[in-house]
């Protein structure tokens, strides 16, 4: 408890990578990243056609676990998928891979998106119960403008892995109707780490198509349909024992938007959505596999939300009723070396159906013109049901008393205070949240984790994980300086993690043993970051950001994937149509690591990047050219988020072209 008070009194900060919006209500612990090619501000990016993962990497709250060159898994405040909520325009989507090779972010493309809103801790509970926070990926915000036709051609090339990027977008908008379509294709070969070391099985190929169309039914009502189709093939995961032959998603939604002629209600948005994911792992190209296996997975989600926001006197309120039904199935078939033997088959996710219904309420009370107080609450009903008898009986080997269905209530509350006057801003808050175990944590059956080399068994008897959180931030801003320091402290009860069970033998050949998902009494996570920027002159700007996270279990041993001291500093020069940036990035040596969870000490590293951009404007068209060199000195390095110390990309020269007419 003492610790809580100490961190309650420590302070934090805020820095937006994009626009500074002056209205009071945006002064929250939210970070809005410009991503993709649809944002009005995307032109200021140093690498326009970077992957979504590279964009997310810029946030101080987010880091990404890397198992290869593709489909990095976002972690917020050092917490991975199970403890976060990642949505696309409020839609819940769940990856279909038991080994987390397909985070939600891998099924979209920068060409679909305009921004990513990153919320820390309970501030992110709008679309579902979370512990670590949330990322909401927003699609195009362009609506019934009278823009007419717009055409874009995007193209890029990266030397290191010979990645070819080609894409186009065709948009049309008038006052009644709009349609945005885009396509993007990436094709990359193996990348080379520093010193020209080729990383085998790091290739990928991805095609993404998307369309959004809206129609104005009346001046205050409109309807929008949206579809994303994403198909990745031949994706290598050099840090894992298997690759992916197919990862395919279809993400669809239908939205109805209503702006009542009312003093109190600003907007009422209702969306129905459906998405389906197919994920097929493949080890046929790997030499010397002990046994060949097929591991396909499927995840289908049906959902809706209805979100209403408005104001009443000094209150700005938001309500969100949302629900989803997800079906997750994964199976494993192993082929014995003797072809006369029967195939070995098991369900690794036993057709788990998750039904969730939640209501989120938020009230932002304006105390006076420079301070406000925000309350949020989220109450959710969560039910898991194992639909496959085969799968249920499999799990009953471990839990004979287990029943197919399990229901939980998930509660979340938070309150935050914000103050902003004369360039000084500060805020603090506290929150309480709960989450249900993920499908793997509750129902996984012999899921091999190549990080620690253990087979994991789910535990249907896990209690809700509960987090008590405090956060604080303080910032200062004037014409030249902008700084912010922020910190969050999480005290997580019944922290879910795999604990070895020596009495059970592993399944995977040569695995170290079995870990069963178990709840530790508690664990603690401190996440802190500091950002600063200084406008040296009209053209020159210096930026810096520093992150440090610390996580401990109840025996004061480290939790995995906690950021050691991490820094990024850059010097930008932007006169007129020309922009350039020199960037220094690195980590200090990882001193807090825990071999118990598969970690080892990651040495420090520093890399230097540079990029240049120029905007050509013609009579009716414009062209933006970005080019740059990443890892100029070709350092061979790995970071704390690299799975099994997979070395990162060596020197890479990229060129991105974007032509609009």
């Amino acid at each position: 408890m003492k610790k809580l008070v100490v961190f309650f009194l420590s302070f934090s900060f805020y820095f937006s990578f994009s626009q500074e919006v002056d209205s009071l209500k945006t002064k929250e612990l939210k970070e809005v990243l410009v991503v993709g090619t649809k944002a009005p501000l995307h032109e200021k990016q140093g690498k326009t056609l970077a992957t979504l993962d590279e964009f997310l990497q810029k946030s101080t709250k987010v880091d990404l676990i890397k198992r290869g060159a593709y489909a990095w898994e976002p972690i917020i405040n050092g917490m991975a998928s199970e403890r976060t909520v990642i949505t696309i325009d409020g839609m819940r989507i769940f990856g279909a891979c038991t080994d987390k090779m397909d985070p939600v972010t891998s099924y979209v493309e920068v060409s679909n998106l305009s921004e990513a809103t990153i919320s820390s801790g309970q501030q992110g509970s709008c679309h579902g119960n979370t512990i670590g926070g949330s990322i909401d990926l927003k699609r195009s915000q362009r609506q019934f403008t009278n823009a007419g036709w717009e055409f874009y051609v995007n193209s890029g090339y990266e030397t290191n892995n010979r990645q070819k990027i080609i894409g186009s977008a065709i948009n049309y908008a008038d006052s009644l109707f709009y349609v945005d379509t885009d396509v993007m294709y990436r094709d990359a070969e193996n990348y080379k780490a520093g010193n020209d070391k080729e990383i085998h099985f790091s290739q990928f190929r991805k095609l993404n198509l998307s369309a959004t169309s809206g129609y104005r039914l009346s001046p205050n009502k409109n309807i929008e349909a949206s579809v994303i189709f994403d198909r990745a093939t031949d994706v290598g995961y050099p840090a894992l024992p298997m690759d992916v032959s197919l990862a395919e998603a279809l993400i669809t939604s239908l939205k109805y938007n209503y702006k009542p002629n009312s003093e109190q209600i600003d907007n009422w948005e209702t969306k129905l959505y459906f998405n389906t994911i197919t994920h097929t792992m493949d080890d046929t190209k790997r030499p010397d596999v002990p046994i060949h296996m097929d591991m396909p997975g499927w995840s289908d989600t049906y959902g809706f939300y209805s979100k209403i926001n408005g104001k009443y006197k000094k209150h700005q309120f938001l309500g969100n009723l949302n629900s989803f039904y997800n079906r997750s199935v994964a199976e494993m078939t192993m082929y014995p070396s003797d072809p006369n033997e029967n195939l070995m088959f098991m369900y690794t996710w036993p057709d788990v159906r998750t039904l969730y219904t939640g209501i989120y309420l938020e009230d932002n009370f304006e105390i006076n013109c420079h301070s406000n107080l925000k309350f949020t609450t989220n109450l959710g009903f969560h039910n898991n049901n194992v639909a496959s008898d085969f799968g249920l009986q499999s799990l009953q080997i471990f839990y004979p008393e287990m029943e197919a269905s399990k229901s939980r209530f998930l509660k979340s509350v938070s309150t935050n205070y914000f103050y902003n006057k004369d360039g000084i801003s500060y805020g603090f808050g506290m929150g309480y949240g709960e989450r249900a175990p993920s499908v793997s944590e509750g129902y996984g059956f012999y899921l091999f984790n190549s990080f620690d080399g253990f087979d994991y068994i789910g535990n249907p008897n896990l209690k809700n994980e509960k987090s008590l959180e405090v956060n604080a931030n303080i910032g200062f801003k004037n014409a030249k300086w902008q700084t912010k320091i922020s910190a969050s402290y999480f005290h997580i009860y019944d922290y879910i993690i795999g604990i070895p069970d020596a009495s059970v033998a592993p399944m995977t050949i040569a695995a170290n043993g079995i870990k069963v998902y178990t709840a530790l009494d508690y664990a603690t996570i401190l996440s802190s970051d500091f950002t600063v920027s200084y406008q040296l002159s009209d053209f020159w700007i210096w930026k810096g950001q520093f992150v440090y996270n610390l996580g401990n279990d109840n025996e004061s041993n480290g939790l995995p994937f906690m950021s050691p001291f991490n820094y990024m500093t850059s010097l930008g020069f932007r006169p007129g149509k020309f922009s350039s940036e020199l960037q220094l990035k690195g980590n200090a040596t990882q001193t807090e690591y825990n071999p118990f969870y598969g970690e080892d000490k990651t040495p420090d590293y520093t890399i230097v990047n540079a990029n240049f951009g120029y905007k050509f404007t013609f009579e009716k068209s414009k062209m933006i050219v970005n080019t740059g060199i990443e890892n100029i000195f070709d350092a061979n390095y790995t970071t704390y988020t690299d799975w099994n110390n997979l070395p990162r990309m060596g020197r890479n020269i990229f060129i991105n072209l974007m032509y609009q007419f």
Partner: protein
Amino acid sequence: MKTSIKYLVAIFAIAFTFVSCSNDDETTVNELDGITKIKEITNDTHTIELYSQMGSLEQGYNEISLRIKDNTTDKYIKNAEVSWAPLMHMTSMSHSCPYSAVEKVTENGTLYSGYIMFQMAQNETEYWDLKIDYTIDEVTYTITEVIDVPASAKRKVNTFMGSDGTKYLVALIEPNTPKVAINNMQVGVWKMQNMMTFPVVDGYTVKIDPRMPSMGNHTSPNNVHATQATTGGLYDGKLSLTMTGYWKINLQLANAEGTVLKGEEITETVTASSIFFEIEF
């Protein structure tokens, strides 16, 4: 919705069963549920119908049912006293095998049943026959017929000399249809008293260690060694199978004092026991 459909189906099924029962003559239909005729054996007075689940016999443990039909009246006999004796005719000698008494299945029914555990299969020169003795209204009849006992595809019987100098027979009974689950396991343990007498062994333990040789000798958790619930009965345990495929159920036979009479513990270097069952599904 799904459950209500299930209920509907169940109600229809029950209704249908009742209808079909009332149309047939009382007992016969139900008695033969789940069993198939192996063969008929005829003498001057009676025809004996032999049944088993598979409709055939094989090496190992066999549950066998029979009915006795009067050749003149075509009626099934309900009040017979039945016993049987299987005999293996080898080239140099003859011997029997473990088998149970033959008992009425239901008081008013026509079926009689018991088990026979054929420890070896027939071959070109060696064969089994089955002698059935039965008494109806204090008149004794007998019938003997050669029966087909082919080898089982997987190993279901172990016959071995224990370290105590006794010859034992251990046979797999359940699971008959194995599942990825905790299966009920049933095993029979007999000893050879002489060539014709194979009584059940009481109070021993059959230790089990299921392994998948194709998966690096993977084993499953929460198995329960087979022990006897009642004297003279079969041995019951629990067998966990974590996936489909080929499983080797390694065995150790321990006597009442816990001394292992046969079989080896599986370790890094000892990958299989000298006595085992095989299951593949």
